[in-house]
């Protein structure tokens, strides 16, 4: 396959950035999207040019590191797939593909397609946990959880923290990410004790990081590679309102 790539190049966070066009003549349909970038970089290095910096690690769709905005969509044209699991058979010979980094003021560009997502870590630090020290736990089967709740909590907990939801949102809102963690813990008996404080603190941190508000467009759900449901945002709103009205702190 012949592919034309228009790739965002930006030397560092201070640089204005611009698009560069590259031509690849020998792309195999079996390659993953990132393997195509490996080929591009190999070519750039041989030509004495600076290779494109991009984040990636596990290349099996679970670490959440890869993060390319492809033809106007986070992680590209397929639903439920991360960039590393996108294969060139999803494109046609002769296609031009535009590749950009996640764009959100809370995710500053480090270089080219790499962005800084440490804001997500800080949101988790604000309350995305159950306060249990190692060694304090009782026998696991003394906590019974209806399968339905466990399954729902699990579905929310499968969020990989890639940030596609923020990149997809016109407001750069992190509500889907935050709601996934809040839901995961609010659905479990272990999460009840810190339930109110958790949601208030996480939302506060989310706002401080400069993420936008949710206007229920649903782009986050549509682009989430793990299919995290919008239902979680509804639950987050309920949790937040309830906590705001009843919290004793």
């Amino acid at each position, binding site marked *: 396959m012949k592919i034309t790539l228009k790739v965002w190049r930006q030397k560092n966070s201070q640089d204005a950035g611009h698009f560069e066009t590259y031509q690849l003549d020998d792309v195999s349909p079996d390659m993953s999207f990132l393997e195509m970038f*490996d080929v591009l970089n190999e070519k750039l290095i*041989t030509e004495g040019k600076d290779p494109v910096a991009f984040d990636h690690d596990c290349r*099996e769709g679970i670490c959440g590191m890869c993060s390319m905005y492809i033809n106007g969509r986070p992680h590209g044209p397929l639903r439920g*797939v991360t960039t590393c699991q996108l294969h060139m058979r999803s494109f046609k010979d002769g296609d031009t593909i535009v590749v950009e980094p996640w764009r959100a003021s809370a995710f500053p560009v480090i270089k080219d397609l790499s962005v800084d997502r440490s804001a997500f870590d800080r949101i988790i630090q*604000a309350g995305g*946990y159950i306060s249990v020290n*190692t060694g304090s*736990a009782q026998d696991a089967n003394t906590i019974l959880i209806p399968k339905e709740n466990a399954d729902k909590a699990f579905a929310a907990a499968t969020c*990989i923290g890639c940030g596609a939801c923020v990149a997809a949102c016109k407001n750069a809102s992190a509500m889907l990410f935050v709601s996934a963690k809040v839901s995961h813990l609010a659905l479990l008996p*272990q999460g009840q004790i810190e339930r109110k404080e958790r949601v208030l603190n996480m939302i506060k941190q989310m706002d401080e990081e400069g993420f936008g508000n949710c206007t229920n467009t649903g782009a986050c759900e549509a682009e989430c590679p793990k299919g995290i449901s919008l239902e979680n945002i509804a639950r987050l709103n309920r949790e937040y309102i309830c906590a705001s009205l009843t919290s004793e702190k």
Partner: protein
Amino acid sequence: MATSPKLDAKIPEGPLQEKWTKFRSTVPLVNPANKRNLEIIVVGSGLAGSSAAASLAELGYKVKVFCFQDSARRAHSIAAQGGINAAKNYQNDGDSVYRLFYDTIKGGDYRAREANVYRLAEVSANIIDQCVAQGVPFAREYGGYLSNRSFGGTQVQRTFYAAGQTGQQLLLGAYSALMRQVALGQVKMYTRHEMLNIVMIDGKCRGIIARNLITGELERHFGHAVILASGGYGNVFYLSTNAMGSNATAIWKAHKKGAFFGNPCFTQIHPTCIPVSGEHQSKLTLMSESLRNDGRIWVPKKLEDAKAIREGRLNPNDIKEEDRDYYLERRYPAFGNLVPRDVASRAAKERCDAGFGVNATGEAVFLDFAYNLKYKYGMMEANKRGIKNPTEQQLKELGRPIVEEKYGNLFDMYKQITGVDPYENPMMIYPAVHYTMGGLWVDYHLMTTVPGLYALGEANFSDHGANRLGASALMQGLADGYFIIPYTIGAYLSNEIKTKPISTNHEAFVQAENEVKDQINKLMNVKGKHSVDHFHKKLGKIMWNKCGMARNAKGLQEAIEEIRSLREEFWKDVKVPGSDKEFNPELEKAGRVADFLELGELMCIDALHRNESCGGHFREEYQTEDGEALRDDANFSYVAAWEFKELGKWELHKEELKFENIKVAQRSYK
């Protein structure tokens, strides 16, 4: 055989069942006020690193955590699929601490240390309790109780799981505990930092040199103790199921500063991975061992059928039952498709070498779900709904949702990568490098031969002997981090309460930093013709062909020579673009591959010296008549711990393995 005086494993006296309890009750403690003045560095944020850092911080120590990824949550433990073992005996099927201990020693082909493995089995149950308390959403039955499944090399159901994403859920649990300690100010995180050297002062490890990967600056960090939890070195093979960034640099730098390397040649080749599709391939993807609960592995019985499938003339679904060779069920009727990984991998290679491979390259076998989908799950549903004499089509439709729930994410991943729907066609799989049992030699305290330097999780040579059982890596990583290091580190730190933090202007820090600078300058200034990947791929081919699933003396001798000359070529002709004072992923890779080029040689030397076959180490010269691994207990019942002398030169030390609680026998899964 006597154990080398340089290897004191510090195994507590007394009966096996009492060693750990006694140790915990008598190990010196550090009082809370003193803990606040003691600093610990943790390198790596996977299951072992995150759980250790969080637990130590909870105790009151000041902890610094380093990882090269952009968040602690990205460590490659996240990709573990199938599950985690624990001797809970929730299934009432006869499990016990002893049985988990026994299975692990036997699975490791009698090349692991009894005391460590027994302790691992003992704390396994606590891990599940801890994780559930953290909110890890394990799979549950309708009554609300935890669910279990089987893994290879065992006959009980002791594996806890969260769909095919157990590693993710466990890591997010440990990560959340870690983030809580960060918020409390007990842990300081250094993400996008890579450890490039350790600092030795008066014979003790006192800190590290790390590179800030965004700015390129080198940083000096002091610690009263340093813990390496940096994972395994499977990427020495270039193609493996490891993440792209997984590397050996932390343990290798430590090795060159005095930490002995244990059993470097023990590599686990996982039987069920998606086969290589072409030259562009950057990594291999695992299909969880849990699939062997319900998938049956086969190749055609007739060579002409295999050929027809390879050429695309025959659909495997059209091959009649009697023309299929379920070779694991045939060779190992007792364990069938659930034999340990090393056995399953070799059996696949044997069939493919004999010409029965089923994909274009001839290196693939089938993993087929059709049987259980229809006759196990489909029939179960049909019975539940009272459908009499269901048709094949009905059974398929009824069984599919159940298979989807159990393995849906794995099936989706398979389809995404190969473009083939595994609900309709059997999967094609082939063995691939997955895990390294070898690693830094550690004693019962998990301390390396360098005082004050510990190694946890896959980074140590550990509990798995010559072959790790499925669902045991997660168990070991979390055991080390949550329940072992918090106790054992006290034995060392209780003697350090008077040690004031050492200034990072100390000459040892300056010297360690200069060594790092020199290597970086050297890499930047070669200005050769070929990219880092060019050399990495070449190294991978040598390792896979000559130090992979089957090894022999001649091949290993050749490999050693080839690696030495490739290393020379690398330092003459590698090309690293850009500058070292910026975000430069190529420079990061170059440093890691430089280390792999040294480690690869040691792996071959170790494989060459071990004149026996055991577990994942299969020397073609040493096999039984029916092709099983043939151990030599009289001469090789020891851990090989290698001391670095100079590049290309190592000294072998032996730790004798004594089996007092298990009868050593030839491993049989028949």
